């Protein structure tokens, strides 16, 4: 992993201690580091240079605040500037209906997957989508779209016999009118921006279907090439938005800044995984901290809030306070944590430990606990007291673990229950919950200490 900008800067900033004002001279070392950080995050050379100039202007003459270090202050300025640049423009989609979206980009950027993700995403908002297979070149590309379409329950228009892409587009439009569809997404073949015949083809397709949105799909790890790509596609088909994909990797995604700056086309989507629900609207602030290597704490907190079903959480809290915590509740907790994503992806969002690998042990242990509980009967889950030796033996066999492991889980459950009783006794639990809620955390995930200890001291064992 790259050294985070924060680390780099704090080193350069050491000498700034005691200075009262930021000046060009005393900042030059720090700005050099900022430049290196931007360049190693794949921000385009020219964009990085301009950016540094802007930041310099903003910094020079600023009084150094007493409460923060100069490094923090500069980072704040840089971060704000980045957020401003990244977030400029309309990042939402056109509200026209029918809404026609043309997807373009290089090979392997993730156009087909992103098309399906957008369809799925907007279907939830009540759109009636149609996917159109315009990639007639790559072997089995149509099969891929059809297969994904089936997964998300969205029909796919294709014509395997036609070599005429603009005509396929037109026919798809006609079809969509007959069927009353109000969202038509055209998935096209990957093409190089210098491939003249293919660029002509997509220009013609665009002319015939008149899309409201033209989205460039770009790999989040793309390098300096991003600028050429975005510029050329913008010139050819007038982009209305950019989708950055594969952001579940650890690329810093500096290309997002480059493309935005050079073309002034807003970034509208962020793809964060292979699953079709791994999709998000673009958040400039998150991208900014990603480029700067400061982790993504905001995203994590929001993700936690979203994933955990509010009502489920409340019910859980009630049950825990009644000290009636059984294996069903434990299973519930496990699946809530799972909804957050893998431990590794959660770790990736945290700045201080993003470079560390989560031990698979923790994840495996969660899976194992789940398997054990799933091997219990309903009665056993609800009243753990009935778990005698023969039942334990059966459960161990059913979940493929040793009896000792089943025993261990039962013991952990007992301990959790005991602990809750204790907490509840003094009314401490209620207080604790209140406190956590006020901090924007959901108590259900933390109660019992599962996620809490998972994140804080994740090297330690999970309590179940």
């Amino acid at each position, binding site marked *: *992993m*790259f050294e985070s900008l924060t680390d780099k800067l704090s080193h350069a900033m050491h000498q700034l201690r005691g200075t009262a004002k930021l000046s060009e001279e005393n900042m030059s070392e720090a700005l050099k580091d900022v430049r*290196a950080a931007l*360049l*190693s*995050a*794949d921000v*385009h*050379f*020219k964009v990085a240079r301009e950016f540094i100039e802007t930041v310099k202007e903003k910094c020079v003459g600023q009084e150094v605040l007493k409460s923060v270090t100069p490094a923090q202050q500069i980072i704040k300025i840089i971060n704000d500037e980045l957020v401003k640049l990244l977030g400029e423009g309309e990042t939402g989609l056109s509200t026209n209906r029918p809404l026609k979206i043309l997807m373009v980009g*290089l*090979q*392997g*950027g*993730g156009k087909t997957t992103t098309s399906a993700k957008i369809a799925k995403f907007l279907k939830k908002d009540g759109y009636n989508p149609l996917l159109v297979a315009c990639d007639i*070149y*790559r*072997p*089995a*590309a*149509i*099969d*891929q*779209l*059809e*297969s*994904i379409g089936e*997964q998300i329950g969205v029909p796919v228009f294709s014509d395997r016999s036609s070599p005429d892409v603009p005509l396929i587009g037109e026919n798809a439009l006609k079809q969509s009118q007959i069927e009353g569809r109000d969202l038509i997404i055209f998935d096209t073949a990957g093409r*190089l*921006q*210098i491939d003249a015949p293919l660029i002509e083809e997509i220009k013609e397709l665009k002319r015939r279907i008149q899309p409201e949105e033209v989205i460039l799909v770009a*790999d*989040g*790890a*793309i*390098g*300096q*090439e*991003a600028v*050429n*790509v975005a510029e050329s596609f913008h010139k050819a088909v007038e982009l209305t938005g950019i989708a950055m994909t*594969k952001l*579940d*990797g*650890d*690329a*810093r995604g*500096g*290309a997002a800044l480059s493309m935005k700056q050079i073309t002034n086309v807003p970034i509208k989507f962020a793809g964060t995984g*292979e699953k079709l629900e791994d999709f998000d609207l673009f958040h400039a602030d998150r991208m900014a901290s990603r480029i700067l290597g400061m982790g993504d704490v905001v995203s994590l907190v929001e993700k936690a809030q979203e994933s955990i079903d509010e009502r489920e959480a409340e019910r859980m809290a009630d049950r825990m306070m009644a000290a009636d915590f059984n294996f069903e509740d434990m299973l519930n907790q496990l699946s809530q944590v799972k909804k957050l994503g*893998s431990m*590794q*992806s959660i770790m*990736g969002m945290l700045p201080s430990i993003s470079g560390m*690998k*989560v031990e*698979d042990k923790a*994840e495996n242990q969660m899976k194992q606990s789940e398997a054990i509980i799933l091997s219990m009967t309903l009665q056993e889950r609800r009243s753990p007291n009935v778990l005698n030796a023969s039942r334990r033996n059966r459960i161990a066999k059913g979940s493929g673990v040793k009896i000792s492991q089943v025993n261990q889980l039962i013991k952990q459950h007992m301990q959790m229950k005991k602990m809750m009783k204790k907490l509840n006794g003094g009314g401490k639990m209620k207080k604790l919950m209140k406190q956590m809620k006020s901090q924007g955390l959901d108590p259900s995930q933390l109660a019992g200490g599962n996620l809490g200890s998972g994140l804080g001291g994740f090297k330690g064992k999970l309590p179940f």
Partner: protein
Amino acid sequence: MRSLFKKFKEGLSKSAKNIADKTGGIFRRAKLDASTIEELEEALYGADFGYETTEEIVEETKEAYRKDKELRGQDVAKIGSSVLRRVLDGSEGTIEFKDDRPTVICLVGVNGSGKTTTTAKLGSQCKVEGRKVLVAACDTFRAAAIEQLKEWTNRLDLEIVSGERGADAAAVAYDAWQAAKSRRKDTLIIDTAGRLHTKSNLMDELAKIRRVLQKRDESAPHYSLLVVDGSLGSNSIEQARVFHEKFGLDGLIVTKLDGTSRGGSLVGIYRELKLPIFFLGFGEKAEDLQAYQIENYVDAVFGLEEEVSA
């Protein structure tokens, strides 16, 4: 093996023009001035050479300029290419085929880097050279990946072993090895599903493919090659690092160099990990995969042949 791919030069010359164009402006100049350094820097960063190599070339150029104010553009090109040659020393990978067993080549990489296309191209080229090739479709995850490879093997008249979508990739690899043995094939090329290096469960799946192959041949896979998209930036180093750690790599194949990207990330990867580069990909046709050679790459990057020796 070297005679296997003769078209290297032609392929690179496609992208060579772009590389030379970017940097050529400076190299053609009779005398340098201060703005030259910045242009040089921009061209080098633009080629994704990464921070270290770029700074190294820039520093050496500055140093030479201090000593000799009469420095010409060609001298800069020479400095650049000598630094690059130094950095890339030993980076040529060659495949040495086994005589007594199928040579197993396993292609891995992140999503969309071009593994399936490269599998087909490599298979076809080996076949042209008279080898008996079997291709294994072990991407059982991505929708229609198997169909894609099948379509390729139909076109190129290659034999393929595949499983159902969703099947265990390692099982398909195992079957493929068996099939290679019983059909007396001498080369087995395995296409795997794309996976981001940050997903540890998917990385474990790769380890399983290796384990299973080793049940039949302890030395397999003989070549585990990471397929890297040439238009990616610094993150490709991270990709290579993790794949190397988790799976063990023997080298790289850099694809999609037919665009304007200069594939400079291979320099960064080699610098960091010393993983040799085997092939470069220049397009979607079967013959667009060529053996990598340092001299050709460096010359192309700095446009030496056209600009300097002329």
